[in-house]
Structures are given as structure tokens and as C-alpha cells.
């Protein structure tokens, strides 16, 4: 089954996961690339996006599996035809066959930008670094049965803190994204909870790369 790698940036970050699937279904239709439909009484065109992205988060490494109905179309042509009819912010970067099995997707790289409107307080980077060096770090997480506590440390593989300018601190992390998975925003939640004096005014999140369990790029 073919797969496409796409980015979701700019205005498009506000499009929800379900809406994004609909958006792609329509884009395929506009591009005259008919999708195979599911069987059953109410057939739906088949598309599947791996790892739903939270609303508001940017990504340059989204994956979507699809299946075309009818004659095969060269991968580059699929990419270009879709890009002509997609909305600003959603852009197909690559189309390829034989992607790896989604179940082998294990880790992702993310960048959190902590914004401090009145300037980054002295010692923020050091304090954040020290925080994530703790042996355990329980943070509340929403679940189907209400909030539960989750230790996030075992799910963080790498983490790097930098102060780029007077107003932002970045947190680059590689975290588990499947079984178990860590929502990168939980890193910011940890800062809020344990370092209230370094709480940022706003946090932006960006997903930058996907890996398998061995740390090889996942395609």
C-alpha cells in the first residue's frame, strides 16, 4: 500500500485529525486520484493517518496510507497532483511504496519552544535540564477514565535544552510514540508542575522525525 509523507504547518495546524482525513479524501478526489473504498453499506474512501497529531502542533513528518482505485500512477505525479489541490500548510513531501509497518514505529523527535514574554528567567535552561535528569517525573495525563498519573522519564530517550534568545528556550526530545506513547506536551506540563517559577507564557510544539525502536528513521 502506498504511503505519503506530508507536513502540516501554518494555518493547517488547527485542522483536527478527523477533519484532516476528510480533507485528504477530498483532495484525492479533486486530483482525480480515486481512492479505494471500504466495503459495506456506507463505503468510505480509505485513508489512514499514523499517530494523530494534536490540534495546534506542527509536523514535518506525517504519514498517510492510502490505496488508489484503478490504474497505477507514478509516485511523483501523485505528490504533485495533490499539492496542486491541497490547502496552504498541508504539503506532500514524498510518496512511496512499501513503507514500514506502522506497528514498528516507536520513537519521535519533537521540539518544544517555551516562550517567555518578559524574558527568560535566569537559570531556566539549567533548571529544566536538572528536572529531566530526575529518576522519575510523574505528570497527570488525561485518559478515558479521567486523569491518571504517568511517570514520563522512562519514555524520554534523549533531551536537550537550549536558550536561543532572550525570550525562548527550546526543548528537543526523542520520546516514545507508540506502546507506550508520550504526548510531547507532557514535557511542558512537567515544567509547569515542578518549576512554577519557570513556567512559560506559551508553548509551541513541533514534530520533526519518526524512528523505529532501534533509532533508524521510520518511513
Amino acid at each position, binding site marked *: 500500500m502506498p504511503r505519503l509523507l506530508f507536513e502540516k504547518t*501554518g*494555518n*493547517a495546524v*488547527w*485542522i*483536527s485529525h*478527523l*477533519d484532516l482525513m*476528510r*480533507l485528504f*479524501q*477530498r*483532495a*484525492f*478526489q*479533486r*486530483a*482525480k486520484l*480515486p481512492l479505494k*473504498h471500504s466495503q459495506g453499506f*456506507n*463505503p468510505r*474512501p480509505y485513508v489512514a493517518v499514523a499517530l494523530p497529531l494534536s*490540534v*495546534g502542533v506542527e509536523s514535518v513528518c506525517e504519514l498517510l496510507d492510502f490505496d488508489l482505485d484503478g490504474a497505477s500512477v507514478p509516485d511523483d505525479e501523485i505528490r504533485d497532483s495533490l499539492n496542486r*489541490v*491541497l*490547502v*496552504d*500548510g498541508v504539503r506532500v513531501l514524498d510518496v512511496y511504496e512499501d513503507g514500514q509497518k506502522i506497528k514498528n514505529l516507536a520513537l519521535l523527535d519533537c521540539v518544544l519552544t517555551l516562550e517567555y514574554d518578559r524574558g527568560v528567567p535566569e537559570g531556566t535552561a539549567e533548571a529544566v535540564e536538572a528536572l529531566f535528569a530526575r529518576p522519575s517525573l510523574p505528570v497527570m495525563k488525561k485518559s478515558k477514565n479521567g486523569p491518571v498519573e504517568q511517570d514520563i522519564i522512562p519514555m524520554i530517550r534523549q533531551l536537550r535544552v537550549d536558550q536561543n534568545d532572550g525570550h525562548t528556550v527550546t526543548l528537543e526530545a526523542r520520546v516514545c510514540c507508540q506502546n507506550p506513547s508520550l504526548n510531547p506536551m507532557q514535557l511542558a506540563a512537567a515544567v509547569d508542575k515542578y518549576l512554577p517559577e519557570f513556567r512559560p507564557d*506559551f508553548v509551541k510544539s513541533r514534530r520533526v522525525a519518526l524512528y523505529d525502536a532501534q533509532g533508524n528513521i521510520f518511513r
Partner: protein
Amino acid sequence: MTELLKRILPTVQKPARYTGGEFNEIKKDLASVRVRVAFCFPDTYEIGMSNLGMRILYGVMNEMDGVWCERVFTPWADMEQAMVENHLPLWALESQDPVKDFDMIAFTIGYEMCYTNILNMLRLAGLPLHSRDRNDLKNIVFAGGVCAYNPEPLADFIDFFSLGEGEEITVEIVSLYDRAKAEGWTKEAFLLEVAKIPGVYVPSFYRHEYAEDGTLARIVPLVEGVPTKFTKRIVEDLDKAYWPTKMIVPSTEIVHDRANLEVFRGCIRGCRFCQAGFSCRPVRRKSAKVLFDQAVETMEDSGHNELTLSSLSTSDFRGLKELTDDLIPYCADHKINLSVPSLRADNFSRDLMERLQTVRKSGLTFAPEAGTQRLRDVINKNLTEEEILTTCANAFSGGWNNVKLYFMLGLPTETDEDVLGIADLVYKVIKTWQANAVNKKRGLRVHVATAFFVPKPHTPFQWEKQITPEEYLRRCRLLKSHFYSKSITYDYHGPDLSRLEAVFARGDRRVGPVIEEAMNRGAKLDGWDEFFNYSYWVDAFDACGVDMEYYTTRGFGEDELLPWDPMDVGVTKRFLQLERKRAYEAKVTPDCREGCAGCGANCLLKEVDCDA
């Protein structure tokens, strides 16, 4: 997008409705734009983007050279709160620029209960609510839509109204503005000129005087030479009319999330309570050929997988067979769901329903509106018990097990016998199911809903009393006590909203301050159950000293000057009076196909005949 908005968006529900950026959104280079129009829909994005009229006029204005029309919707309450807290003024989606930067601010108004949203949007935009406090040509506020057929409740707030279908008149208005802006006219000078465009009404050019008993005595022109009658505009030849095949495809789910093709305008039926039925006359069709081409173009361009054929009564579209014969195979080939709402219970429609797959999902829907044949004759609703039961019998034997029935309570001449007639009809539907159902194990669901009758302007019932809310509720309870079967679910709309709707539908200038007062007290999004709060309204009427009963239970005299009399929708007042008389005699008036009843709307046509 501003950093501020970026920070607000993660905190509100469905942020995609505030960002714009959808497929086919129109962006223009400001350097080549002379007139900026903020096209405001006084309800949420999901409702507004489902509105065909807005989509047409968005296209019409953006086709104009030097004009950029952008969209604005009512923010949901969470966003409104964030805007107020952060001093973020209302913005238009395309450019994200504040509404107060725009030359023209246009509203399309289809429903009385969005009046507070209009005022609230002006307030959130940072504009004065009253036209008299907006002194410049810039930010001129105008409005169209069905509610413009009785514009008086909004007379204080809107600079001018545009009556009827907007395809042509909007172009004339915006072109005149273009000239006015280039030549540096004052607002006053522009209003004087725009008033000369047929179909334009400038309320500030007239004074309304009231008699001692409170009725409207006189409408006095304050400016020499201004018109005293305002005739709505229509498009005669729909085949040649502008049709937006490149429609915006929302990136987030909306209420009618599908392509929508309008097959004809007007309605041949003339149900006496129905404002659309009278005010949208004359009847004009589109040819099946043009419609098919537009359908294909729209579907290919949008990528939608659902297409709906819309109109007031699609079964009456003369080209329906030809069009569906072509469209059904096309849709099947392209895996498009074709839906045809508002089908009547006639033979052809029954056939058609079977050929469309979408019907099964929605079940069978009937709107007999009244429970007895006598009352259906009074309201001229040409739907018989036999038609309903035959359609049900067919459907039940075909496996359907779900029926919805819609009625009104409080119709003129209605008695308890008519109310109980509803229960009777529902039992006959259940009996029909018992006699015809193929699979009784699945059970039957009959959903019955009653609405509170609202007398509307420009209908034969425009003079009628509305019954009291207490009496309406008594009739609801009476009906309820006669439903014994577990298959029936009965919903009745609460009376409060319909009572207000009755006030504003037939309101005059004295109810304007009530709208403002209610909004100041917190009324907003009144069409939404989660926000509607009747007590704001009751308090506002009290505070303004306006009596709701005057507009509801009092009824209007046939010799009374009505606030909407100057508005001419084509149908004559004489015809409405005649129809009212026939209603009291329980005489039906045949539909336009059986013979022209002489409503007068054909006088709006110069090139073609009515319903040709």
C-alpha cells in the same frame, strides 16, 4: 495571523473555524483592491458556511474587479470571551484583518433569532451599534436576506437594506460605493444615491408615527423624492445567473458538509403559513442540462462525496426526472452520495427515493403540519392522510422502520379536535406498520414533533394572533396524553423562542431597543439551546416598556398599516387577504401548476413567464 490569536486558538473549541485558509478561499492583493467588504453571517461558521446564499454572494462580489469580499462569522462563546479579555477585535477570515478596517460591512439575515448576534458582532468589531453614530462612508453597514422583508426591528442599526435576491443588486450597490469612495462622498451623499437603486431601503429617510392605540399611523418620508415602496429584486433567468462552481471547501466539518445545487427558485404550493413560499415567488426554473453541467463542475472542483439538490420543494422541479436520470449514474460512477431532500409523497418521488441510497439513513419524513384534513385545507397544505399512509405502507414493506412527522400547534382555527387528529394520524401510521412491516422484530420508531405557530409577514396569516404560550403548552400536553404507544417519541419545542420570533417577525421600530437591551444583558446565540435565556428577553422588554402581546396575541387588523407594507415581495396584499378568507372557509387554492392563482408575483418578471 497575530501571535495573540495563535495563543487563543488552542484554548477554544474547533479552532479551524477562525483561521480561514480553506480550499478555494479567495485572497486578493490589497494593492489592487479598492473596496473591501466584510460579509458577516450572524451565526457560527458551521451554519454560515452551509448557507448557499452566502456562497453565491461571496462569489459575486469577488468576481468584481477591485473588490475583495471576506467572510466573518459569529464567534462561539469561548472565543468571544477570549476576544473580550484580550481586546482582540472581530476579524475577517481571509486577511485576518479587523472588521473595522473594511469599507462595507454586509449582513445576510435569514432568521429573527440571530438579531442579537448582529449587534454583538458590531460590538465585537468595535463599531457603534447605531447607524446615526457611524458618520463616515467607511464601515457602512447593510443587510439582506429574508428578514429584510420586515427590516424595521433593525432600522436603528443598519444603514440600508437590500431586498430580494442579491446577484444583481449587490453588484450595483458595491459599484456605487466604489465610485463614492473614489470621489470622496459623505455617508449621507452615498445613502441618497444608493436609495435610488431599486430594491434598496434606507430606514433613516423615514419616520414612523404611531397612533394613540399604539398602532402604526404613518410612515413619513424625511427626504424629498425618496421612494415609498421597495420592490424586491429577482434573477429572471437562472440558467444565465452566476453560479459559484469554485466553492470554498471547509477544512472542518460544517452542518451541511456537502455540495449543494439549487435546482429552482420559488414554490408552487402556497402553504398559507409559509413565508418562503410567498416571499420567494415567482417560480423560476433552471434547466436540467445547465444543472447537470454545474453539478459535475462543482463535484470535480470540490472533491465532495455528497451532493444535494436543494430548493423549497424539489419534487416540484420540472426537470427532476431528466436531471436525476443523468445524475444517478454519474454519482454511482464517482461514488458520490446524491441526496434529494424535501421530496413529496408522490409516486415519482417514491420511485426516486428507492433509487437513491441516502434515504434509508435519514428515514421517512413528513410535514403534514396539521392533524386533520380540515385544518390542512385551512393552511393549504396539500398532503392527504392517504398519501402519507400509502408512502408509509410502501416504505414499511421495503424494510424502513423509522418515520418522522412534523406538525404545528396554534394554527388559525385550530381546535382540540385538530390537535387530537395528530394522535389519530400517528396511530394510523402505527397500524400501517403492523399491517405491512416485513420485520416486526426491529420495531417501529415514530418521531413526532410540534412547533409553535409563528405568524409571518407577507403570508396570508400575517394578521393572525399567536396563541398564548400557556395555551400552546396545554395543547402539547393534551396531545401527549393521547400517545399511548412506546413506539412514539414526542418532542415539542418550548414556546419562548417562537414567541420572540413572532415579536421580531412582525416587529416595528419600537422593538429595536429591546434587541439592544437584551444583548447588553447577555443574550447571544439565541438559536442555540445552550445559550438561549428567555429571562434576558423578558427583562429587556420590561426595561424598554414594550409589550410582547402587542405583537403576538393581539393580532393585526386588516385595515392597519403594517410596518412591512412598503416592502413589496411581488405577492399583493389583496391576494393575501383573499387567501386568508379562503383559509377561514377551509378552501384550498390549487398550486401554480393547476392554474395561476393570480398572486401578483409574475409582475416581477419581464423576460419569462412564471413557472414556465
